[in-house]
């Protein structure tokens, strides 16, 4: 029995189905990430878990109770909202203790909890301010403080970091992760930032249009995406998708790539023969930017490594790495190379493709072939 289990949950608004049968289950202490593009139903699902929205059909369990008909206050949950939803007329202290007060926790006890929470989140000096006097990051902390003060059995986070700037987001991400590890609480966390999803999640559910596309650990999802959508959605910069024709190659198969004046056929080492039926047809060859790097001299090149020389159309130095765009089969393909090795646009560059993690999709159904 998991800490949270969602069974065939559906939701309709005025006849249109927003959620089309969701099944998810997590254990106590796990952090479940819901990712997906805007409008895919993440917030709706979270609302239903919280009891703020009714379930059209299906069943939601928290611990071993079916909570479909419980009101939010009886579900033993806490929630952090994207807009933080701090009570504007209350001070930080009151915001944090409001839930306790409602639950008739004694004054002294409230005081103690607030102090503890404030200490954990380092917002002790802010306790007597109003939300309007706080910066974005501080508000975020207070919203979190409000949630952890009650020590519920389930936390719900609805894009808690999306209103912060990039720098702060990274910091808060680490803080949330540490908090989670320290407190061992069960968390459902909505985001549409894949980095957050990857770094924070124990499990990730990738959603699209009211359906779960794939449910698994971050590494499963990253390395073995179930379909084109998941592959493209997770990872930044995105996986490169290159339409390519499958050709027989030795005992197995390969994909044919053209770039500049050159043509290469790369062996589909990771396909385990599944491309057989696609011989002569076009598939989508997917390879992540970090799997295309500058050529190293040493003897690392194995069977799964292919080299090619390609003309550079654009470079993007991000600092630690430089992203290089090269045209392959008419697409701009992003490669992640070491800044010191990057060539300038217009020049050719020797690139090395790590094919061990390349994936292949059916262009029509967009499902993974191999």
């Amino acid at each position: 029995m998991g800490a949270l289990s969602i069974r065939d949950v559906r939701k309709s608004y005025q006849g249109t189905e927003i959620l089309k049968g969701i099944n998810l289950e997590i254990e106590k202490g796990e952090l479940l990430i819901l990712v997906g593009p805007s409008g895919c139903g993440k917030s709706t699902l979270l609302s239903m878990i919280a009891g703020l929205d009714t379930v059209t059909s299906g069943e939601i369990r928290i611990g071993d109770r079916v909570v479909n008909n419980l009101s939010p206050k009886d579900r033993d949950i806490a929630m952090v909202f994207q807009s933080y939803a701090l009570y504007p007329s209350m001070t930080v202290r009151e915001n944090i203790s409001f839930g306790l007060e409602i639950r008739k926790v004694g004054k002294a006890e409230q005081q103690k909890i607030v102090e503890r929470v404030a200490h954990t989140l380092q917002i002790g000096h802010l306790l007597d301010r109003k939300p309007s006097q706080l910066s974005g990051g501080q508000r975020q902390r207070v919203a979190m403080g409000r949630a952890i003060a009650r020590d519920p059995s389930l936390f719900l986070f609805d894009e808690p970091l999306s209103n912060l700037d990039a720098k702060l987001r990274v910091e808060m991400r680490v803080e949330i992760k540490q908090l989670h590890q320290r407190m061992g609480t069960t968390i459902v966390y909505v985001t549409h930032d894949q980095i957050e999803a990857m770094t924070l999640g124990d499990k990730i559910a990738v959603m699209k249009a009211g359906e779960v596309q794939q449910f698994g650990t971050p590494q499963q999802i990253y390395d073995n995406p179930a379909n084109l959508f998941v592959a493209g959605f997770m990872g930044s910069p995105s996986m490169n998708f290159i339409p390519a024709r499958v050709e027989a190659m030795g005992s197995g198969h390969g994909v044919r790539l053209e770039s500049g004046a050159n043509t290469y056929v790369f062996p589909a080492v990771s396909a385990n023969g599944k491309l057989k039926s696609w011989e002569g047809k076009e598939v989508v060859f997917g390879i992540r930017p970090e799997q295309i790097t500058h050529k190293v001299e040493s003897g690392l090149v194995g069977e799964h490594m292919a080299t090619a020389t390609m003309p550079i159309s654009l470079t993007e130095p991000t600092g630690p790495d430089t992203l290089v765009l090269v045209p392959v089969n008419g697409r701009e393909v992003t490669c992640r190379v070491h800044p010191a090795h990057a060539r300038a646009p217009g020049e050719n560059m020797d690139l090395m493709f790590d094919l061990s993690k390349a994936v292949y999709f059916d262009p029509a159904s967009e499902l993974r072939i191999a």
Partner: protein
Amino acid sequence: MDLTAQRVTLTGGDGAGAEAKPRLADRIDAWLPKIVLAPTFVCALVFIYGYILWTAVLSVTPSRMLPKYEFAGLVQYEALFANERWWLALKNLALFGGTFVLVCLAVGLLLAILLDQKIRGEGFIRSIYLYPMALSFIVTGTAWRWILNPELGIERLLHDWGFENARFDWLIDPEMSIYTVVVAAVWQSSGFVMALFLAGLRGIDDSIIKAAQVDGASMPTIYRRIIIPSLRPVFFSSFMILTHIAVKSFDLVMALTNGGPGFASDVPATFMYSFAFTRNQIGLGAASAMMMLMIVVAVIVPFMYSELRRPRHG
């Protein structure tokens, strides 16, 4: 935009570039906002503050029927403070203003909350609550005078229905007549306040309510602790508008009780009017007007100041 700052420039060392001078058209453009606001400013200066000054001047003259500009010291104020009727008018203003503003806020808020419960036919009901605002105080006064009149109105209705001992004679009771003004004024203005609150409620971030629900608060608690406190700006606007109505309430009193019985429901506005215009004591009227203004300023300005100074919250 600060115009004087515009001309301060460091003249470039190499002098390679020609410094562009602001053109006439640009200067006019820069002045345009001020020019546009000028008529309003002048109007306010002349037609509000000029007239207040004029009234202040009159209040220290012995003017009777028409203005007369001779200095007479503070005799008018002495006369005013010695006048029982003035004190009664002030008391009435306090009673009326206080009850009216409070009841209107309470009724307006309550109705807004009720109407905000996804009510079927909301538009229709809202129109009903709002329509009295469309009527002039003259009409309101006439209608309510009828309804509150013991001979014709509710009391008689109750008698006709068999409640022989029912009494509802505030209109002719000197102690209570000021409250009939409250009844009619609330009837007229509470719908507007309701509309303001409704608008305020619609502007509240939904997620705050959800957060409070998750925090375990019941809906009444949420209203009491979260929603109503965050309607503070609406309270402020409503308060300003209602005070404005209360202080200036003249037509309604005239039409409903005509200050009566006797002068039991006199308010400063009717007091001022009758002294300045009927009794040929313009000086005294001016003095009372000044007092009225001072009271308003004493009540409104600190409130407005404190309210507008506080940082806006979302």
